[in-house]
């Protein structure tokens, strides 16, 4: 049971499982001496029920917590798991290699793919480099350079999105964060290679969208995608961060909500508890979904691929035409 492992980090709603699994562990050790297995088995059944109940009833905010779980697999993890090769490419050519944006070449079924993602760090040192997954303008320009590279060599583009958003900093503004994001939105619209975006964790607003203008948008089951963080929304609209639960509900940010709104094209199932319980299995599901959409898009001509993407976004919006 993962919950009893030393490095396991439990979320608040997972606390009942901790208690149960501790009980089971203790009993199992006793049982080894006393031989009464029934109590243990009952407890294990109870555990399974509680667990499936917990994960069935996840609130949007619970999903936010899973999406932000410090042990959640990050893009570089998925890349290693789904591709036999990884040739990372660095830099914007103009003065910075933003660690919050990674990019390079991978292979899927003998086809070269340009993989681009936002990347969080797992410790202080890594996060210094990755800036907690918050890209700077230079990161978006690095991504743009790689988009153009992919377009030139006819590489499909696969993006992995897991970012709180673009970095709100002094330099980021001075170097024109707005323009960097806007250019990516515009130029992604012009590509003739297939673009597939996978939200693997947090899809944080414009910072996520800047590598998310794709023919197909896929979401891991416990990832979220939102115009603003629930905390930010609560602070502005409810004027208190305490209303984060309400904001998370109101914003419709889960994969299920976004599928219903027809913003995303597919939900990639995660193992019970979330991808971090079994990154390998989740990556296999991810690869299956990506392959399916790549295969579908490969039947379109370059112009059709571009048109497909443009029409997808052209048609998003709900309004009354009186």
């Amino acid at each position, binding site marked *: 049971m993962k919950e009893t492992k030393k490095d396991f980090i439990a979320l608040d709603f997972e606390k009942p499982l901790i208690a149960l699994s501790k009980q089971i562990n203790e009993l199992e050790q006793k049982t080894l001496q006393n031989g009464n297995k029934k109590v243990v088995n009952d407890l294990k059944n109870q555990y399974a029920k509680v667990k499936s109940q917990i994960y069935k009833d996840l609130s949007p905010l619970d999903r936010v917590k899973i999406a932000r779980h410090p042990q959640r697999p990050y893009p570089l993890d998925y890349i290693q798991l789904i591709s036999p090769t990884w040739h990372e490419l660095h830099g914007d050519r103009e003065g910075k290699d933003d660690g919050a944006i990674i990019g390079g070449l991978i292979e899927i079924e003998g086809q070269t793919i340009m993989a681009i993602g936002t990347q969080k760090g797992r410790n202080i040192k890594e996060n210094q480099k990755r800036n907690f997954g918050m890209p700077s303008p230079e990161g978006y320009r690095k991504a743009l350079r790689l988009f153009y590279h992919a377009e030139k060599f006819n590489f499909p583009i696969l993006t992995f999105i897991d970012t709180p958003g*673009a*970095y*709100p*900093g*002094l330099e*980021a*503004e*001075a*170097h*024109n*964060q*707005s*323009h960097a*994001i*806007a*250019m990516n*939105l*515009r*130029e*992604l*619209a*012009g590509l003739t290679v297939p673009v597939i975006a996978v939200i693997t964790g947090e899809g944080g*607003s*414009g910072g996520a*969208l800047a590598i*998310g*203008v794709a023919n197909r948008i896929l979401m891991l089951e416990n990832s979220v*995608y*939102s*115009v*603003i963080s629930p905390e930010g*929304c609560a602070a*502005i*609209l*409810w*004027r208190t961060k305490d209303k984060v639960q*309400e*904001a998370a509900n*109101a*914003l*419709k*940010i889960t994969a299920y909500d*976004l599928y219903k*709104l027809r*913003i995303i094209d597919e939900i990639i199932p995660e193992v019970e508890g979330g991808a971090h319980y079994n990154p390998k299995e989740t990556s296999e599901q991810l690869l299956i979904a990506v392959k399916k959409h790549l295969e579908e898009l490969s039947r379109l001509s370059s112009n059709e691929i571009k048109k497909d*993407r*443009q029409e997808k*976004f*052209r048609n*998003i*919006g*709900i*309004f*009354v*035409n*009186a």
Partner: protein
Amino acid sequence: MGLKDFFKTRQLKKAAKLQNGTANANGQDLKAQPPDELLCTLWTKCQGCNELLYTSELKKNLSVCKHCGFHHRLSAQERIDQLIDYGSFIEINENILPDDPLNFVDLKPYKNRLNEAQKTSGVKEAIITGLGSINNQLTAIGVMEFQYIGGSMGSVVGEKIVSLIENAIDKRLPLVLISSSGGARMHEGILSLMQMAKTAGALKKLHEAKLLYISILTEPTFGGVTASFAMLGDILIAEPHARIGFAGRRVIEETIRQKLPKDFQTAEYLLENGQIDLVVPRPNLKQHISDLIRLHSQNTKKSFSGNGIDKTMIDKILARI
């Protein structure tokens, strides 16, 4: 008696005279208004230097303070009146209206907010789009209305901008968009975020059609609007002292834990940091836009002739000039 009181007294006298008529310039009935509101209507306190100014004279000066040069915020309609040749504006898509796709409720329902916004701003959504002429040059123009939920971009703003761009492509017209916005409209959730990609995608088509897009950034332009169509102009012009940026000042100060320089995110700061082409004071704005449109059309006239232009529409507009 202080200066303010003096003005107030003078003001009330004038108002008394007006009450014999039926309505003020805005077509509002004055009879029901208390004196203080009346003061606000006929007099305006400059937000730059606190000077009390005749509202009518301020308006005549394009809402720029004669004393300190402060550019007061304009309504979308005022902006159109200032930039578009008199009588030449034809609004399009005025009947694209907001919905409430998420049934969003915070401290009050989004539906109520929409109703209130329509009442206070006098417009149906946060942008007016249409065709009109600028010094006799036909232009596709969109102007954001900050009074309407902070000029925020939801599905309607996105749709109206995209439709305007498609009009510009179809008729081969230059495009002018005038931004004033706090960013994406949270109450429409992900749909508002997607308007960034939607408008940018339409601008890709405009770009490929090699048509001119002049983006005018006015106080304030932030968030998802700056980070999409507003920053994608061939020419970027800002009004003096307008604040323009991606993240808000407070968010940045909280993140980096230090005070930002006073001129941070002002038009002048952006110019110095290579982000915009020019800062143009409002009194020069129409001429400037008009010059740029002229300069950008004179080498391409050959390829322009009759290229998909809807003659009836143009005749309609020309007839008004």
